[in-house]
């Protein structure tokens, strides 16, 4: 009954984020997480304004041996503790991996790498408050509610009753009947969602006033200015998102299953992806975007060191997702498939990289067996390897991907090339079907070996493979 994003929906209450203890959502989010269970001290909290609260006593080491996680963690803390974070140094550290057992570290670093947090530490709190309010504004303005399209309750019953907007929530409970046919409920449908939304009804009234409906508008209108037409288009996008969100990481309780927490998480995914689709009409929602949003959301939602961040995970992940998409969006765009920047061009670059690194392998795959890179690497690239590796391994790969000074696409292509080189012997011995199977179901692998190979590719302009 309470809206977990209630605080976001009420920009007039910015103080909300600084009082996490009062919010039941915090316990819910933290308790439902499968986050790293280390007992180590937390990383510097995002919104801490007390300078003494961050472990700034660590001395900045000149070189950090990869074998010493404690030293690596200290190096991160040192960089993060300075007034202006040295992004170059942070990238260098993150590229070699962010220690998993250092609680709260990766969420902060990723927010920096993905541009949500500026390097200036003093601005963090203000920036986060502004961005989270901005997201709340998006939600409010972009999600059409049929209730506000109709003038009278009679009109409301006429058509849209069967299409309750699952992205909208009403703390008043007035929508409970129309929400009944949503499989895992609307946002407000689960008491586990927590997070009270004291101002939601006021904001709904504001939305009604803002829409300023014409008397000619009705559910069957085909006019391009019809709010109803826009609403039904939205429903189509929402249904696609809904189907995919329901199928996001079916193996993880965080996203899947009947629990109230999972339902809340799915509701957040749906809304964030829908807001993105509305803000990017040329792209809308494309299958696979859920896979890029999910790791970001999971990371922020399960951060045990940052209760306000847990509460704002949907919003924070949204902006980070936008940053990620600024690099990868062309891969999702059908109109660019045959351009020099679309997915086909990137696949051709991969093919070229494989050829440069290992002519024999390339010859075998592409010439002899006609295994087009599109058959396997389309998913590798568009989903940034999230489906090829376990969730923790994918997070590790993303540490490098997000921080690579050479760029994320280049990093991704090197990782893909490294993946092929890593199984080259099997590929050279396999036939078409077994190789397709191998590449579409990449075997469990120590990702550090993939990263090493990718690094070797970076250092050498042309690589001679000695396997």
């Amino acid at each position: 009954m309470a809206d977990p994003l209630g605080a976001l929906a009420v920009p007039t209450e910015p103080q909300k984020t600084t009082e996490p203890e009062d919010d039941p959502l915090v316990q819910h989010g933290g308790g439902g997480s499968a986050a790293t269970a280390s007992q180590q001290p937390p990383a510097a909290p995002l919104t801490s304004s007390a300078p003494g609260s961050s472990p700034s006593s660590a001395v900045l080491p000149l070189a950090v041996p990869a074998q010493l996680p404690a030293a690596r963690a200290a190096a991160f803390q040192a960089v993060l503790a300075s007034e202006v974070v040295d992004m170059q140094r942070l990238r260098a550290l993150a590229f070699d991996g962010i220690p998993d057992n250092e609680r709260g570290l990766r969420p902060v670093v990723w927010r920096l790498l993905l541009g949500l947090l500026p390097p200036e530490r003093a601005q963090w709190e203000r920036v986060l408050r502004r961005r989270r309010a901005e997201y709340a504004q998006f939600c409010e303005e972009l999600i059409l509610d049929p209730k506000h399209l109709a003038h009278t309750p009679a009109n409301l019953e006429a058509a849209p009753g069967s299409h309750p907007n699952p992205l909208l929530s009403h703390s008043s409970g007035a929508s409970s009947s129309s929400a009944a046919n949503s499989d895992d409920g609307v946002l407000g449908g689960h008491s586990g969602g927590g997070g009270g939304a004291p101002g939601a009804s006021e904001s709904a009234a504001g939305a009604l006033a803002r829409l300023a409906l014409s008397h000619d508008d009705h559910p069957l209108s085909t006019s391009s200015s019809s709010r109803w037409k826009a609403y039904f288009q939205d429903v189509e996008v929402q249904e696609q998102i809904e189907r995919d969100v329901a199928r996001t990481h079916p193996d993880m309780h965080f996203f899947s299953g009947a629990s109230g927490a999972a339902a809340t998480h799915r509701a957040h995914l749906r809304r964030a992806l829908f807001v993105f689709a509305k803000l990017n009409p040329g792209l809308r929602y494309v299958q696979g975007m859920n896979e890029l949003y999910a790791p970001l959301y999971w990371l922020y939602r399960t951060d045990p060191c940052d209760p306000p961040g847990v509460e704002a995970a949907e919003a924070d992940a949204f902006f980070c997702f936008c940053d990620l998409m600024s690099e990868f969006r062309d891969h999702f765009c059908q109109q660019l498939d045959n351009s020099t920047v679309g997915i086909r061009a990137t696949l051709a670059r991969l093919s070229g990289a494989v050829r440069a690194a290992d002519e024999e392998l390339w010859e075998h795959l592409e010439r002899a067996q006609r295994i087009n890179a599109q058959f396997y690497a389309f998913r590798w690239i568009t989903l940034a390897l999230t489906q090829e590796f376990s969730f923790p391994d994918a997070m590790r790969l993303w540490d490098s991907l997000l921080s690579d000074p050479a760029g994320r696409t280049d990093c991704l292509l090197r990782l893909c090339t490294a993946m092929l080189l890593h199984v080259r012997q099997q590929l050279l011995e396999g036939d078409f079907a077994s190789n397709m199977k191998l590449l579409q179901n990449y075997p469990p692998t120590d990702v550090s070996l993939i990263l090493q190979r990718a690094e070797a590719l970076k250092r050498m302009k042309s690589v001679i493979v000695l396997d």
Partner: protein
Amino acid sequence: MEQQPGGGLVLNVDHTFKILLVGDSGVGKSSLLLRFSTGGFEELVPTIGVDFKAKVVDVGGKKVKLTIWDTAGQERFRTLTSSYYRGAQGIVLVYDVSRAETFDSLADIWLREVDMYGTVEECIKMVVANKSDLAEQREVSREMGLQFAKAHGCLFVETSAKGNVAVDQAFEELVHKVGDSGDAQPAGFHWQHLWAEEQAAAAVVVLLRVGCRS
């Protein structure tokens, strides 16, 4: 017939049939394929790009390798999936009986794609009405599906990948029909199964042809 099936002769896979699964997103293409290839059912992630599975089946004592291409359903992927139609001898058009719009898409989208990009003239098309277990949410009747399939010269079967209803039969029937099409039928093709009348008649034609093929 030059060889007796089961006569001790070890045969390698010497025939490959290419089968393509198409249809709207979320109708259960991947689940059908998973059920057919492994016998299992689980919640699957949406297919991005294309998925591929190979399975060797026994057709009248001969081993036929099926290469099955499972495509992504969303419109965005269509420019990319068009190439997968090339050389497909069997095309499975899947819809979800609980979502009428996925049925409408067969005529509006998928049959057109087949016509546009398919390269095998004798290509066998099969309409699969999936999710027959969702009886209460059904929006497309069996009759509608059957009529549509007939009108477009397609085989028709209702399945439930989840309930394991008729999935193997669907693929089996398709494979037999592909073998029947004359384009890629294995030498010494035998029919073990009972057929509907018109199919049995066609099978006789095939058996007559078989002797001429090397």
